[in-house]
C-alpha cells in the first residue's frame, strides 16, 4: 500500500460535496464498489457518508478524498494492487 502523495494522481473534482463526487462516479464509470467509511486506500482513510462509492477503470482507482477546510476531492490514481484489493474485498453495485 503506497503513499498517495508519492503517486501520480489526477484531481477530477475539487472543493466539491461528497454527494457530488458520488453522483460523478455513478454517471461516468461502470465498475462501482461501495466501502465503509474509514476504508483505507493507499495511506488514506476515506471520509464520507455511507455508502461510500469508489470506481475502477481497469487498474485506475477513483475515490473521494475529504479535508475539513477544502471539501471533497475526487482523485484518480493508477494502482493494480489497490484495484485488485477492491475487487476482492468490496461490494460491487
Amino acid at each position, binding site marked *: 500500500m503506497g503513499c498517495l502523495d508519492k503517486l501520480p494522481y489526477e484531481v477530477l473534482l475539487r472543493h466539491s460535496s461528497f454527494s457530488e463526487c458520488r453522483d460523478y462516479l455513478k454517471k461516468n464509470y461502470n465498475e462501482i464498489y461501495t466501502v465503509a467509511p474509514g476504508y483505507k486506500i493507499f495511506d488514506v482513510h476515506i471520509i464520507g457518508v455511507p455508502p461510500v462509492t469508489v470506481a475502477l477503470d481497469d487498474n485506475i482507482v477513483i475515490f473521494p478524498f475529504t479535508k*475539513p477546510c477544502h471539501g471533497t476531492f475526487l482523485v484518480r490514481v493508477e494502482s493494480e494492487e489497490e484495484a485488485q484489493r477492491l475487487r476482492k474485498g468490496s461490494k460491487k453495485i
Partner: protein
Amino acid sequence: MEIKSEISASFNLDLNTDPKEQNNTSKSALLVMGCPQVPLQTTAVLYIAARLKRAGINTVIAGTPSARLLIKYADFEGHYIDEIKDLDLTIEAIVDKGERYPLCFVFIHNDAGVSYAATMDSIMESAIYPVIFGSNAEDVSAQITFECEKITAIAAHNPKPLINAINGVMEWDA
C-alpha cells in the same frame, strides 16, 4: 435518549455526585473540530469541554493543524483540554488500532463536517453529537441522517444561539 442519561450510561457516571469524588479519569470524550473558518467553533469546543470536565470526563481534541493551535493557545494551561491530537492520526487509531471514545462531539459547518460526522458514527460505536453552526446550519443539519441528537444553531460570530442549543442538551452540570 437524552444526553444526561446517555453520558451516564456510557461512562458509568453518577452525574449528581461531585466529579472530583468519582474515579473515571480513564474515560474520555472526543471533540472533532472542523475547519476553524467560523469564529465561534473554538468557543463552542472549549465551552463543551469545560462542561465535560465539570462532569469528570477527560477531553480529547482532534483537528487540523490550525484548529489545534487555536485550542492550544486558547487553553494554554490545559484547564479544559487533556489531549490535542491530529485528526487523520486519530481516525487511523480508531480504524486500525481499535481506539474508542464513548462520547464524540463533531463540530460542523460545511459538507466536509457532515462527512466526518457520518464517518465517526460508522467507525465507532459511540454516542455521536453533531454540533452544527454557521449561516447554513439548518441546511447542513438536514444532511445528517444517521440516528443522533443534533445540536444546531444559526450562528457564526455571536456564540450565544449555539451556547443556548448546547445548554438545551447538556443539562447535567448546570
